[in-house]
């Protein structure tokens, strides 16, 4: 052992070799640094949270089209790396002369929850743990009190006698409480009436979740899990691109579809035609017809003053 050899030669010149004390000291320092590095091991997980480009990215509304193009390329690359599917990511802006309004026919809804799952499939929500934008409340006849509603019903057959079903999702308020409380302006109302979130700007403080009277906002407590074969490759920046852990998300009226002229996914799948969507500024649209002629029963919790763009109505 070199250590004992050195000890046995106390008269070794000081510059020739190392003495016991400095050897121990440097060994201790080395061991200490190694241990320090090893004790920081949990930080290695950080690289999943953000990339440098994303960290240095500008605010959505301040980005030039060229910068936006770069961001879309980065997202494409990240999604392809993670899921092995090359997505088609776009940044769809609101159309001129369009304001979206949603109406839901409570007479028709049968509570089959197909909209819930069509929404999850379209908008790339986490499957496990589960994030769903739509909650279907089973409500006893004769009451509009949502506190009497139950969204965990597990009946074998729907609709159940003596109940009606009331799906609730983001109401796209004209006076949104969630936007007002956001400390970093990561969420705002676009001119077509859709309140959107920039997932790269959100700091995950969850103020908006607390402010929303409809429980429409969802938080990614863990890393979202989406099987690659269920990923929807048609994406938009403010819409359904995959989210990260620690950001909010919510219904955005499927902007990757609706800003392209299509109906939202929840409407497409509704087997009874209870869901109606359209441009309220177009007097010929079915939504304008419904607003003019139907018995619009409620804007949910209208006493909150949020003025939702989501209306519930009855046929008869």
């Amino acid at each position, binding site marked *: 052992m070199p250590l004992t050899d050195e000890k046995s030669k106390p008269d070794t010149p000081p510059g020739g070799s190392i003495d016991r004390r400095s050897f121990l000291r440097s060994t201790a320092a080395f061991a200490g640094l190694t241990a320090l590095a090893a004790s920081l091991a949990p930080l290695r997980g950080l690289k999943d949270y953000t990339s440098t480009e994303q960290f240095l990215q500008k605010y959505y509304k301040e980005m030039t089209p060229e910068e936006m193009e770069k961001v879309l390329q980065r997202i494409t690359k990240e999604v392809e790396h993670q899921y092995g599917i090359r997505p088609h990511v776009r940044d769809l802006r609101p159309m001129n002369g369009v304001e979206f309004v949603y109406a839901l026919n409570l007479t028709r809804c049968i509570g*089959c929850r197909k909209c819930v799952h069509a929404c999850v499939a379209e908008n790339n929500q986490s499957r496990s743990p*589960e994030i769903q934008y739509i909650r279907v409340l089973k409500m006893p006849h004769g009451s509009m009190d949502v506190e009497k509603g139950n969204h*965990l*019903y597990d009946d074998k057959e729907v609709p159940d006698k003596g109940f009606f079903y009331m799906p609730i999702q983001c109401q796209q308020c004209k006076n949104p409480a969630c936007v007002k409380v956001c400390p970093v302006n990561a969420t705002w109302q676009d001119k077509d009436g859709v309140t959107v979130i920039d997932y790269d700007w959100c700091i995950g403080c969850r103020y908006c979740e607390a402010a929303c009277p409809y429980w429409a906002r969802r938080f990614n407590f863990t890393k979202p899990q989406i099987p690659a074969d269920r990923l929807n490759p048609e994406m938009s920046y403010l819409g359904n691109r995959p989210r990260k852990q620690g950001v909010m998300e919510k219904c955005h009226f499927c902007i990757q579809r609706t800003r392209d002229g299509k109906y939202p996914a929840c409407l497409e799948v509704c087997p009874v035609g209870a869901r109606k969507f359209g441009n309220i500024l177009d007097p010929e649209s079915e939504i304008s017809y419904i607003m003019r002629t139907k018995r619009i029963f409620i804007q949910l919790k209208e006493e909150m003053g949020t003025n939702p763009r989501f209306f519930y109505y009855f046929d008869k």
Partner: protein
Amino acid sequence: MEQAPESSKVPGFRKTTYCLSALVVVFVGLAAAFLGNLWGHPPARQQIALVDKGFLEKTPWRKTYADMVRAKEDLSDFDCYGCHDKKHPPPLRFDGNSILIVPEEHKDIVMGHGSHNRNNLCYNCHNESNLETFQVRDGRELKFADSTQLCGSCHGPNYRDWEAGAHGRINGYWNTKLGEARKLDCANCHNPHAPRIPTRMPAPGPHALRTPVGNPHQAETAK
């Protein structure tokens, strides 16, 4: 004697050494804990099963005659005069409670149009003088493909809503300048012989992040 100046530094040197060794011990301990996963993995979350793809299906559950013509499907079921005689319209038979007896050849037809069996006469809609058409109360004769107009001849308000897009399903594009909107017909969703939408199995409900202790609403909905 050479050691004397060094030994005079001992208290300060010792302090540093103790501090450093204490830190080293802390770091080694932490490193061992992280690498050896001393606290164990976070408790495994319950994996939620993927939803059956059938619940994501957008196509309507029924096909109309017009759909079958479009898809060039086998229409031999609609060849009435393969069995019936043109000159003799099939007679309707009723049981003691004046409920229509559905003949054996048509036993797949469930009679359920209107409550209390008030609308159980085949020739309210089918045309006895030409079984391959419908007859409307105002005397018009309609082809099978135009069944929606037949429904509209009685269900006025719903037909009006359907024309405006407020009743029934429209798929495709809300903005018809950008693409086609496909308006479904009555018979895509309603069985004309039993138009009430049948009950169905709902898609699975939400799973909480933590397993909920009982359903707080159970007592309320059970009433």
